[in-house]
């Protein structure tokens, strides 16, 4: 049976054509294509901030699996977003070691300040608050992930400063965005 030329079959796949080098490198790391799914989903999320149905279909094509299989993974892993998120995702650690050090109060403070609750995004599209389970920095409690940065031993002042830095654009946004797709 003639070898299936996967590369040419993906010629109409936007996602693949945009990140060809990256995706080829990811796929090469594994003996089966489906293993590349999680890294490719991260690629999508770093660009868009979330994973749309259309992106799931394209990822399925690249990984030679069905869209249902992609959705299975996307909906299972809690860090993949199925809805657009803010430019700054504030992941508050809410598990016991942090809760013993007033993580609940930290959330209450942030929530009041931003006017949103868990999993919501501010109207200006700047902030999303997420409940994260233990972030593995319990000695520094309470902690919070601001996009990729871990902020430790949080106080009201520290939070005010972080929010201000975000508003002034001094911090790297959660996603890079792509032209013509989403601001």
């Amino acid at each position, binding site marked *: 049976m003639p070898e299936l030329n996967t590369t040419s079959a993906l010629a109409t796949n936007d996602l693949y054509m945009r990140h060809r080098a990256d995706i080829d490198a990811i796929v090469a*790391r594994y003996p089966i294509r*489906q293993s590349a799914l999680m890294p490719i989903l*991260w690629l999508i999320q770093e660009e868009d901030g979330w994973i749309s149905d259309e992106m799931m279909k394209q990822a399925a094509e690249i990984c030679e*699996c069905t869209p249902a299989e992609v959705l299975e993974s996307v909906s299972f*892993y809690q860090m993949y977003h199925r809805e657009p998120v803010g430019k700054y995702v504030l992941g508050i650690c809410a598990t*016991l070691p942090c809760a*013993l050090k*007033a993580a609940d109060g930290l959330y209450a403070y942030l929530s009041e300040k931003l006017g949103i609750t868990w999993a919501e995004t501010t109207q200006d599209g700047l902030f999303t608050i997420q409940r994260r389970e233990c972030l593995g920095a319990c*000695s520094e409690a309470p902690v919070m992930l601001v996009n990729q940065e*871990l902020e430790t031993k949080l106080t009201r002042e520290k939070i005010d400063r972080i929010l201000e830095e975000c508003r002034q654009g001094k911090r790297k946004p959660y996603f890079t965005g792509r032209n013509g797709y989403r601001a």
Partner: protein
Amino acid sequence: MAATNNYEPILSAGVTGTVYSGRSESLADYRAKGGYDGLKRALEMGPDKVLDLIKEANIRGRGGAGFPAGVKWGFIPRNRERPHYVCVNADESEPGTFSNRSLLEQRPHLLIEGALIAAFATLSESVYVYIRKEYYEATRQMQRAIDDARAAGLIGKGILGSDFNCEVAIHLGAGAYICGEETALIESIEGKRGYPRNRPPFPAIQGLYMSPTVVNNIETLAIAAEVMRRGVEWFKGIGTEKSPGMTVYSISGHVNRPGNYELPLGVTMRELIYDYAGGIRDGNKFKAVFPGGSSVPMLFEDELDVVMDFDSPRKYNTFLGSTGIIVMDETVCFVWASLNLMHFYWDESCGQCTPCREGTNWMYKILKRLEAGQGVNGDVELLEDICGNITSRSICALGEFATGSLVRTIPRFRAEFQAHIDQGRCPFEKGYMRFG
């Protein structure tokens, strides 16, 4: 305390603080300290002798179960009918555990060396390092270390001039506690939902891609690297007879000096809390402690002299676990703490099997009611019964983990649980909720 007084950290040598502060051991620094000599020695010995040596050292797995690494490696078939795999479990997600973070961020080469030795001994040519996505800095440092090692001929084809080939790649998680379970981790690398598998077959026979696979915690591999370098005798000279060696205890919660403490196995819980972590904050009274992450039953005041090795905590029906020690003082309400943890287990249960999926959900609902003062008589007994119905009936251990905060607590503090029902509210002040 005498035996451990002047112990110099080995695994966390040069590590400062829990969280990365700009310093990570470079390849040159690591090699200057004798780094990769263990690998060199392994390559000279050949895989079979390396396996024997690790078996002899009796390195018990630091991931939680304490299963000897040598025995685990020994299950791998000694042929290459199918490719073998080594998976490095760096999905440290157990609440209260943060020792792997600092090793990943600050001593990545130690872990790479350990992984390469494991691959060599198990006739494997591929290593996947499964790091949880939340560890952004750890991922960066690990990737940098892998790139440096590859450039130096330590990863790839013909490592150190031998005929040993090995590739190392990072696989990132995406926020699933369950992926720390070895078969769930395997499923996750295969690009699927992190569902633990039924055993048999065991990963050593049919693991990743249906091939023989060994999954080890990074601390275990780090120890393996040190053992290869310094020898079995050195290793057995540390710790206790049945639990040789050292481990990194992560201490958090209401203590004065929370942090990572690398010590020989065999210190007591009292020493850890009062001598190393500086005792309870604000001069408060001690109430309870999770000795090995939030998944194991708690220890109480009269049990603090337990020796923290693999076997001693069993007499209190609890375990060394992940050596994540969460200390709670007298201000803590057990219903509140259990509710917090039950949210965690309910949230992190993969939902595959009935008892864990429905049991955690039910217990969470009950605890929520209790804490809100809407409990009804019989709820406490119901909780106990549900714990019994989950324990040892689920596919993996997560179901049992969820009962960790309740099984020993309810019998001893039944009055505290019942008070929530009788008073129709939580009787605690909750000072620890005050923020700022």
